[in-house]
């Protein structure tokens, strides 16, 4: 380890798409990467051993939740989240702002920070950029996120303008407050809603700060897919080639494949574990729901070609017997779904390096849409990076 907290090496590209290795204090990460979400210091129901066997090299923790319980002081006293949850690989924490705005009814954003009413005792507290970084410094993740002024993705007008400029003002407060740049990487978040002009202003501001990596925020919140991919593309065209790009909160397989083609390196989403709790398993053809009666006598694994421990050891019929809200069923499907996401990223990584990305994506999309009724936005987005689904 060279003493820098982050190194990013590209092994191959295909138009905008990149395959690389991101090296952080807790080891190397092959990109593109999917990061499972462990909100409260655990991936729902999985032991760290199961997680190790699954193999993600980075997972997420949520600052809002961990800052609330067990709290920053406990976090500091137990030596940070790595030690607390006995996780030897990399961690990323968010700033806490997004969760606050989405979870707390009374949250209000002022220049000082995110003002909110304590869910315990009703007192008014403020999560400032300084406070967010202080908590994240105590949690000790390898990547920490700047506090940004989050607005709903379809917000327009003066409020959106304000949020864009404030996000830039807050990044300086975050940088100033950050006490561990030697072993924690502060990523800035590009805001600006669906307005290309504002996105560019935010990009200008953040790129001047020369941060170790950049995230694209404010998407995946109800905007049209057409608007979504265009903003992603706008950002990836401008973000530096030698730094990792993280698209926050995006995790549907089709979306990730398109966004990798557009130049994204990192994703996170609760989708694979959340959908598992409803009995849904991710397969090359899309999603199957194991609660459905058609699987009652199906003695094949979820996916014949999957090497995860669930597919090696259990049949669809067995999981179906557990599907009445049983946590074992959810756990078995979660293992598979995370394995699916990691496998998909690995497939993209390999195909970029070997120059087969276009074939890989065409075959992926054909399995997802056997009638070739591809959504227009997928066709358009891939066309923009010269990947043709129709020959």
């Amino acid at each position: 380890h060279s003493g820098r907290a982050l190194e990013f090496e590209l092994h191959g590209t295909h138009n905008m798409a990149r395959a690389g290795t991101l090296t952080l204090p807790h080891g190397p990460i092959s990109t593109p990467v999917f990061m499972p979400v462990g909100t409260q210091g655990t991936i729902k129901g999985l032991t760290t051993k199961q997680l190790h066997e699954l193999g993600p090299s980075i997972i997420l923790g949520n600052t809002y939740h961990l800052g609330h319980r067990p709290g920053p002081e406990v976090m500091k006293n137990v030596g940070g989240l790595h030690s607390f949850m006995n996780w030897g690989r990399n961690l990323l924490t968010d700033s806490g702002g997004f969760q606050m705005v989405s979870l707390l009814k009374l949250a209000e954003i002022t220049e000082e920070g995110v003002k909110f009413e304590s869910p315990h005792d009703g007192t008014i507290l403020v999560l400032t950029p300084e406070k967010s970084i202080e908590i994240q410094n105590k949690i000790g993740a390898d990547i920490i996120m700047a506090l940004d002024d989050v607005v709903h993705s379809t917000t327009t007008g003066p409020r959106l303008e304000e949020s864009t400029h404030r996000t830039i003002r807050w990044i300086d407060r975050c940088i100033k407050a950050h006490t561990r740049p030697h072993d924690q990487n502060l990523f800035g978040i590009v805001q600006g809603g669906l307005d290309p002009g504002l996105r560019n202003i935010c990009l200008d501001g953040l790129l001047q700060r020369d941060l170790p990596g950049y995230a694209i925020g404010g998407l995946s919140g109800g905007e049209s897919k057409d608007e979504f991919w265009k903003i992603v593309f706008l950002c990836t065209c401008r973000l530096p080639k030698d730094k990792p790009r993280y698209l926050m909160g995006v995790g549907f397989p089709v979306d990730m494949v398109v966004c990798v083609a557009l130049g994204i390196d990192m994703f996170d989403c609760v989708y694979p574990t959340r959908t598992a709790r409803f009995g849904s398993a991710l397969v090359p053809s899309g999603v199957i729901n194991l609660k459905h009666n058609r699987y009652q006598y199906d003695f094949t694994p979820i996916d014949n070609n999957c090497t995860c421990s669930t597919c090696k050891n259990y049949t669809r019929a067995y999981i179906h017997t557990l599907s009445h809200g049983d946590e074992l069923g959810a756990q078995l499907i979660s293992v598979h779904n995370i394995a699916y996401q990691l496998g998909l990223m690995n497939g993209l990584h390999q195909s970029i390096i070997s120059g087969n990305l276009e074939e890989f994506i065409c075959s992926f999309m054909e399995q997802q849409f056997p009638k070739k009724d591809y959504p227009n936005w997928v066709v358009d987005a891939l066309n923009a990076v010269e990947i043709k689904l129709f020959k």
Partner: protein
Amino acid sequence: MQDSVSPTFKFTLLSTGTISGPRCGIICNRENEVDTPCILVHGAVGIPNHMNSELLRDIPEVRVQHVALADVYENLKVIEQFGEGFKKFSNFPNQNFLYLGCTDPTFFYESTQGSVLVQTRSGRASVDLSEYVRLVEAMDVDFYSGLTYDVTWNHSRKRCIKSVQLTLEMLDELIEAGCKNKNVFGVIEGGSDRKERIRSAQETAQRPVVGFLLGGFGLDESTTQRNEYIHLVLSEIPPDKPRMINGVGDPYEVLSCVEMGIDIFTNSFVGQATEQGCVLTWNLTPQKGKIYLDSDKIMISLLHTKFKEDMSPIVHGCGCYTCLNHTRAYICHLLSVHEMLGHTLIQIHNVFHYTAFFKVIRENVKGGTFEEYKKTFFESFPITTF
């Protein structure tokens, strides 16, 4: 269906035990052996709740898995069609024994006249004897209990007589049904009626059963009553067959039952501790005269905030996955935020600890030191602190 060869079942008493006191034995099927006294682990699908079969594999002392009728009844046709037995279907460790029990250690259901009622996930169902036979065969269990008609301890003599009568009738029907698997444990019922308990024991002993299940315990009887009735029943059944008890599980009860000659336990003790956020902490080998501190109590609740920065394992020196990898602080956090992993981690420890307790018991019986062990245990951990 697989080529059904009847599973074998052999129980051998070790000579070091005594006929009417604590004893050690070995249960064999075709390939494997299990030492007694032992505990059957139970959970909604034959795996302790919050665990999976991979986690169970890491606990070497877990050797017999108890599946309750209520939890598999609905899946009879699926298991039949699968055709390779329940162990394979559920990915249970191959060397483990599989026991199918008519009663569920977690719940008590009183059956109505002439039928066995079970609470399945989609509601109550009345189990037909032929369905039970099909289940035993399709699951390819190593041994199973007869169908029973349980009564609580405050029932009239009339109900007690009926409970014995129906349980015997169902056992006869089961034997006559020609199930390929003959490894049935006869269930001794009779509630609080001494005469009926004796009759039930004597009559069951005359049937071709491979072992006995002492039914109707762990309900509303007192400890004195329980011990009296266990003695009463055990003196009526042949000593060369294994005796199982359902519903009795705290360490004091276990030691008392082993002392009386019980070989196999099935209960919800561990599961209940885990649900309450409690971890089993008693010293497995207490030393005479040593004062055990608060932290060496039978169990402690990790829900308590005093553990929130406690970076020690649940039990120092414990070899379970949880204690080797995680701290009280982390578990306390997981429990307080209602994350599943909290219960998973304490369940792993609890099952490990409890099964290790049985190993220590066997060692003491074999070494002839059981009485001393039991005495030291009761002195070290007075019941009042439990």
